[in-house]
């Protein structure tokens, strides 16, 4: 019996990514087996939405800038309402390599995991970051590993695959400001299984990271506080099974 192909939606959050977004969308549209592409324009002022549309993506235009968490969540809501089987989250800046998407999806169907994270650190595949960033990712890895009782190497990676159950959950519960590390804890503690697969990532070609040098301290404190608070929250969904 032949398996029905999965309906997969690529969710691309973008804030003022006019230089990169067109390339990201056309690369995503070249992925095989094909995925639908929706760009969530987080109130950009540089024509990101128009360029994404021209490149062939559907575009969700947020009238007010919500930050990355609110933008990604809009994509989850879209996927949940339109009955997609899986969501791939891809950054709008061109860092992630769309040709790695089949590897994420295969890992998901192969292991039955609810969430698959594309990790830069699982295997040495030519991604280097600044020392400060490395310390940051170590700290998150340590905290989240303690919180979940298992090791997650790349908590800040925004290159992920979610199945429909995880998408439904996240469309209602997604952290606001810097969601990646916190969502790992949130998902893990609510009974979703998480896998990591090694992926390549590119150095950022255009624009700057959403996290500035000054902001990184605030970022760390805020995210660690959120994770710490999450540990005391009641579970939102009961473990099935």
């Amino acid at each position: 019996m032949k398996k029905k192909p999965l309906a997969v939606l690529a969710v691309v959050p973008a804030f003022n990514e006019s230089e990169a977004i067109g390339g990201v969308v056309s690369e995503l549209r070249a992925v095989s087996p094909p995925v639908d592409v929706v760009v969530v324009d987080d109130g950009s002022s540089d024509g990101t939405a128009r360029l994404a549309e021209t490149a062939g993506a559907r575009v969700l235009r947020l009238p007010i800038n919500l930050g990355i968490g609110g933008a990604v969540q809009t994509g989850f809501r879209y996927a949940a309402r339109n009955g997609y089987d899986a969501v791939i989250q891809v950054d709008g800046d061109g860092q992630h390599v769309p040709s790695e998407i089949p590897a994420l999806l295969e890992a998901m169907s192969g292991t039955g995991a609810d969430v698959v994270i594309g990790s830069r650190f699982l295997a040495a595949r030519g991604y280097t970051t600044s020392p400060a960033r490395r310390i940051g990712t170590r700290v998150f890895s340590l905290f989240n590993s303690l919180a979940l009782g298992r090791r997650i190497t790349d908590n800040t990676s925004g290159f992920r695959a979610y199945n429909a159950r995880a998408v439904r959950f996240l469309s209602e519960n997604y952290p606001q400001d810097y969601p990646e590390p916190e969502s790992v804890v949130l998902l893990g503690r609510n009974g979703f299984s998480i896998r990591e697969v090694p992926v390549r990532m590119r150095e950022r070609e255009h624009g700057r990271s959403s996290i500035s040098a000054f902001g990184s301290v605030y970022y760390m404190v805020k995210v660690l506080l959120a994770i710490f608070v999450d540990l005391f929250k009641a579970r939102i969904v009961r473990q099935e099974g």
Partner: protein
Amino acid sequence: MQVRVQIVSILVGVILLGTIFQLIRKNRLQEKYALLWILSAVIVLVLSVWRDFLALFASWVGIFYAPSALFLVALFCGMVIALHFSVVVSDLTKQNKTLVQEIALLKEELQRTRGASRKRRPPARKRRP
């Protein structure tokens, strides 16, 4: 000296209470948010008028100068109100986020359905004079 402090604090309490009622009357302040303010104003007023109780309260908590106890209570009321507002702002932020997301989803749907209907019947609408 004590009397002057008492007069000032009674005045402050009365003005606060008057302002709150005026704001409610003009629909500028919802009762839901006025409740804590009214409670605070009443507490300040009661403690300023009823000096013996203020003195008793001050000695309970170990404050030698009774009017200081009044300031402490007022400060505490202010903190409770500020905390309450933080909770309200957090709720509003959450609701706002949901609304913004909903608008984006509806706009996309509208665009899509309009495009589809336009394709089906090209002269969809005639301009009216």
